């Protein structure tokens, strides 16, 4: 059996955990530069706020309706996501983190799935304060369908018998099936197919012809035949690392910075090759422990404001990490950069469309930089490492980084 756990209005929920005055009120979260709405609490949805609508167009409407707008605080969301996922990982040996707020879990040998799912839901919410919905089914597509229905059933829906599945598919709109979507749904409607059950009744040859082999897989999954295994999609490594020993001991910060910059650039290459982005990087520096000179090893992890794979996004934080740990007077012989919190590049796009747009731009810049370096040799273009102000985002309504910065912790009134 497969469970899909999905955080309810994830970004808005993260904001609420640390700002309880937002509980029960409409909350929206805005994209980078406070451009448009990328997340809405249920209350905001009920007021008719649309996904993607430009913020500036309806500021008055938000104010009149008491809608609280927050700039996106990715540092907070990444940390909370990590907590949710790590909590979920205690329930199964096989978890696929599908996006920042969704994960598939393989559940085997569990007799009372409903009870198990309820427990899981309770523990995640208790540990993190984030409400989640759980859908369970024999395949990923069915788990996803169950998850969609979970809201109606107190947050948990288990399609664990053929009867329940049949009953559900009979009324499940075909366009809502995972992997079919609105467009294809419309096309199917023209063929008089309105529900998932109707789609399942079509001959497979017709399905293949009309919806390609991908569609066929979806239909088989609806029939309870697993075609999308958790391993298959769970391609992500835990971490990617670039580390080398230096050719000679290095003492100066400038040189260390150069090393960290180039290693990070290299790490970005690796990430891009895998179609992956990371949300955290760790920089570590080491002296040669075989030598008699004074020893020093240190590392620092930085959570990125926005997961990425471009040197434009990663080098600056890496240098920041280096600055935090570098100590003068040692002979360093090694530096290492790790990327963790790895997810697929594609996963991000659905959530943060305009961030994705920026990423496209960055990709072009990255390519240009690569070319320059190729033509003029190493280190010709030295990224963002000067610590200049750079491209700071406009985030006027940014909440504090409650879980990742000491100065930003909640302040609890005692009195």
């Amino acid at each position, binding site marked *: 059996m497969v469970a899909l756990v999905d955080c309810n209005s994830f970004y808005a929920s993260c904001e609420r955990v640390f700002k309880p005055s937002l*509980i029960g009120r409409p909350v929206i979260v805005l994209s980078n530069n406070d451009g448009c709405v990328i997340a809405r609490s249920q209350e905001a949805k009920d007021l008719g706020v649309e996904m993607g609508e430009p913020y500036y167009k309806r500021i008055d409407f938000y104010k009149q309706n008491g809608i609280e707008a927050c700039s996106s605080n990715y540092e907070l969301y990444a940390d909370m996501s990590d907590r949710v996922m790590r*909590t979920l990982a205690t329930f199964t040996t096989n978890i696929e983190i599908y996006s920042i707020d969704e994960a598939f879990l393989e559940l085997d040998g569990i007799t009372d799935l409903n009870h198990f799912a309820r427990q899981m839901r309770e523990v995640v919410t208790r*540990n993190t304060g984030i409400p989640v919905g759980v859908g369970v089914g024999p395949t990923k597509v069915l788990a996803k369908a169950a998850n969609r229905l979970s809201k109606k059933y107190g947050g948990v829906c288990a399609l664990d018998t053929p009867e329940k599945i049949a009953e559900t598919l009979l009324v499940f709109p075909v366009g809502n099936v995972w992997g079919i979507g609105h467009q294809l749904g419309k096309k199917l409607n023209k063929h008089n197919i309105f529900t998932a059950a109707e789609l399942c009744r079509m001959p497979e040859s017709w399905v293949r012809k009309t919806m390609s082999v991908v569609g066929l897989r979806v239909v088989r999954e609806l029939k309870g035949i697993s075609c999308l295994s958790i391993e298959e999609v769970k391609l992500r490594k835990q971490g990617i690392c670039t580390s080398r*020993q230096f050719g000679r001991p290095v003492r100066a910060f400038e040189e260390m910075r150069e090393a960290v910059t180039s*290693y990070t650039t290299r790490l970005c290459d690796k990430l891009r090759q895998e179609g992956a982005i990371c949300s955290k990087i760790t920089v570590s520096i080491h002296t040669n422990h075989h030598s008699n000179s004074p020893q020093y090893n240190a590392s620092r992890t930085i959570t990125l404001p926005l997961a990425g794979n471009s040197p434009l996004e990663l080098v600056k934080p890496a240098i920041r990490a280096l600055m935090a740990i570098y100590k003068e007077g040692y002979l360093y012989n090694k530096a290492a950069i790790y990327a963790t919190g790895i997810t697929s590049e594609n996963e991000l796009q659905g959530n943060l469309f305009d961030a994705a747009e920026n990423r496209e731009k960055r990709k072009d810049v990255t390519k240009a930089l690569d070319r320059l370096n190729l033509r003029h040799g190493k280190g010709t273009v030295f990224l963002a490492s000067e610590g200049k102000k750079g491209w700071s985002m406009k985030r006027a309504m940014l909440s504090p980084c409650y879980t990742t910065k000491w100065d930003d912790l909640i*302040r609890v009134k005692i009195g």
Partner: protein
Amino acid sequence: MLNPKTEEPAFGTLCGAVACGFPSPAQDYVAEELDLNQLLLKNKTSTFFAWAKGMSMKNAGIDEGDLLIIDKALRPQNNSIAICIIDGEFTCKRISLSEDGRLFLAPENADFKRIEVKEGHNFTVWGVVTSWVKFAGRK
């Protein structure tokens, strides 16, 4: 020396200058040092930090500026020091159940009054304070 043009473009001097050593994971070098997290954080995923503000828990030993360590996963017991939300506001108090079953948020300072949690209140326990860190010589 290597010709930079044949070297990988993005790779810097330090590594390119001499034949490189074997890449080895840095874990090898991580010293086993005492980690305060180990002592203070039972459940990493459910532990959060907060700064204490105010003096109502003085007699319990919590002063302004202390770092509170809070575990959301723990269920509050009678006499737990907890972070509560009452009517949309955070507060840190001792949970106190009276013999007749009434729920109080009790301060630890004679200058403050205890609050009785009644039906009309919007009340939840956000997390249980498991320890706090005091900084010597800091105000």
